[in-house]
């Protein structure tokens, strides 16, 4: 069986499908898979004028709200569960913080700019009862970007299995879902980036089934006056979290893995302990360089090669 690789760009990230099978067949499956990703992007991207996400966000302030389809209803129910389980840390209404946080321009907002947005953030303010979603205040937004990529990875992997591919890997910008291990049973080897030298791998994780998601403070971050600001913002304060440099989780679904990495990052230095108490298959690196988690390989250094005091790369 041959391994076919097809790469494309979607959801703002480089994506790759690795499929085992007959070339003609896998090419067809790859096209179907890519179509699925394109469908989800068209539906949930806030950058598209005609997407469902934009229609929902434009309805903010209208008490009639928007009627959503079955798939969106399940995604909103999932977001509600994640909000409750994370004690309000995982919150899909927090996307509006991007209006004041500009990581590309390296601009740190003023405290009152952030504070002004907080009244518009909070899943508890949203009125959600299937199939009607109401954003009662003008300026509120729903951002699917925090979890739709992981969901897409799981959905694409399921689609490939449905179309007869038993072995393969779906990679959507670093969110991975296994269709199945290599045909000889070997797992997929997933590299975990060194958060302070992101083009180098610090460790390797073995993925047989399910999905892997990673969150890190090195992705889209900025350093202003020697202080690192990561892109993971705590919806309760509006400010970036500190504590973990990177966390990866393996779970039955990439969607669940992604929620756990986000929640762990949002718990700061206690995020690692929280994942351990859950019994999660995780690998995390604290800002101090300390490495932990159930997946710590025997050969990984106990302290990552992070030199404190050295100018940190972004």
């Amino acid at each position, binding site marked *: 069986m041959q391994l076919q690789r097809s790469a494309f760009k979607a959801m703002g990230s480089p994506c790759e499908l690795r499929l085992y099978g007959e070339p003609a067949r896998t090419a067809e499956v790859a096209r179907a898979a890519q179509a699925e990703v394109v469908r989800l992007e068209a539906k949930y991207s806030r950058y598209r004028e005609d997407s469902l996400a934009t229609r929902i966000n434009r309805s903010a302030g209208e008490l009639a709200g928007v009627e959503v389809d079955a798939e969106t209803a399940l995604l909103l129910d*999932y977001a509600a569960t994640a909000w409750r*389980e994370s004690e309000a840390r995982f919150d899909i209404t927090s996307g509006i913080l991007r209006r004041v946080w500009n990581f590309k321009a390296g601009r740190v907002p003023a405290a009152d700019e952030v504070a002004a947005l907080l009244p518009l953030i909070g899943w508890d303010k949203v009125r959600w009862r299937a199939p009607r979603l109401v954003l009662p205040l003008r300026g509120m937004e729903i951002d699917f970007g925090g979890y739709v990529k992981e969901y897409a990875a799981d959905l694409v992997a399921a689609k490939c299995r*449905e179309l007869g591919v038993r072995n393969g890997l779906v990679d959507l910008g670093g969110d991975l879902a296994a269709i199945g291990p290599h045909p000889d049973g070997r797992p997929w080897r997933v590299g975990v980036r060194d958060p302070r030298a992101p083009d180098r791998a610090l460790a390797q994780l073995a993925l047989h089934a*399910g999905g892997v998601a990673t969150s890190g403070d090195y992705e889209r971050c900025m350093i202003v006056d020697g202080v690192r600001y990561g892109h993971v913002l705590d919806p309760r304060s509006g400010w970036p979290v500190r504590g973990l440099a990177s966390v990866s989780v393996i779970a*039955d679904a990439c*969607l*669940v893995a992604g929620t*756990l990495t986000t929640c762990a990052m949002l718990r700061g230095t206690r995020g690692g302990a929280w994942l351990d*108490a859950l019994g999660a298959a995780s690998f995390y690196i604290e800002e101090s360089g300390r490495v932990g988690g159930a997946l*710590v390989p025997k050969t990984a250094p106990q302290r990552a090669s992070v030199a404190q005091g050295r100018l940190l790369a972004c």
Partner: protein
Amino acid sequence: MSQKKRRARSERRAAERAAVRAARSGRGTFAMLTTSALALIPGLAERAAAQSQENGWSFAYGYSMYAEGSLPASKVSAGSRERYDIDTHAFKLAAPIGGNISLGLDVAYEKMTGASPWLIESDLAGDPVVVMTGASIEDARTDVLASVTFIGEKSRTSLTGGTSMEDDYTAINFGFGREKDFNQKATTFSWGMGFSTDEIDPNGTSFNPLPSKHHKKVGSFSLGIAQVIDRASVAQSSLTLQYADGYLADPYKLVSAGGINSEDRRPGTRTQISWLTRYRRHFERVHGSLHADYQFNWDTWDVKANTLELGWHQELFELITIAPSIRYYTQSEAKFYAPYFALGLPATQDASSDYRLSPYGALSFKLRADVSLADLLKVPQARIGLQYERYESGAEYAIGSIGTENPALVDFSVLMLTLKTGF
């Protein structure tokens, strides 16, 4: 350990599993997220069931020191005032086989030293006083229980078999249990049966007449239901019927009637019904849970008992749990019980002065602290726990008034250390 204790223990485990599913606690979060993702992602249900968190390895060790308080001089007319000390080591192992089967092994080793109440007689004023056995009897007991559980997507079936051995006592037991989930696992029905047979061959050194071998058989049947009420609360209720047949008396006890001591005699059968209800509610804002348990017992010896236990489990810093609790117990006397009998009795009439069949109430306090060592030791699910319990019983704790308190009622303290881990 008795059949009743085993049934109570497996009921407790089932309730704990349901509570973990519902309340926001370590494993609960994982299950809640995965359950929510099931409808979104095709094929996830099969994968999640196969790799269920319930089917991993786990190992636990517990050590407990139990000490009964000594009796005041005013209650003892002869023998040692010191009572039992019991040290117990317990091991528990669970191992998965394939995707759907879990094997379990529980081993407990107990060492008992001390004296126990032998008979009760009347002092000069007519008040009952205890004659204790002589100092330091040393006894050891070994308990082994093996189980195999077949785990299905919405049901679990288990078979158990075990044995209990002491110097003078041997018992073997078998059990069968089945649980079935309904309403997307919000409701679980369970039922089970158990059977045990034992033989006691008393040591004849300490009294007269010479005892002989005795046997008894016990059968039990139970029905239960567990219901997840909402994402923060769960309730469970179960009814157990137990029938015992054979020699049910205590061969090491005598009873005083008309000033003459003779052997403890009890009916040859005993039917007991017990009804247990549990409620657990988690309070997210304060990271704590309320535990409430109530049990009612009734039997054909006229002993009726009520138990109420309330506890609070408080999580601190995601790693530590502190759990204080209080338990109140009250029971009425068996129909053939008296501290002593003023007049003589025919040899065939049932009579016992065992304090465990007397009317009394008891109050106990427990404090447990549990710490997760998973992060420190790099071993997932590793935990260490310490528990202290103080128990006091007496006529003053009972509901209703009690004419005469049995002088042998016991007070005790227990300190228990447990270590757990999983893979």
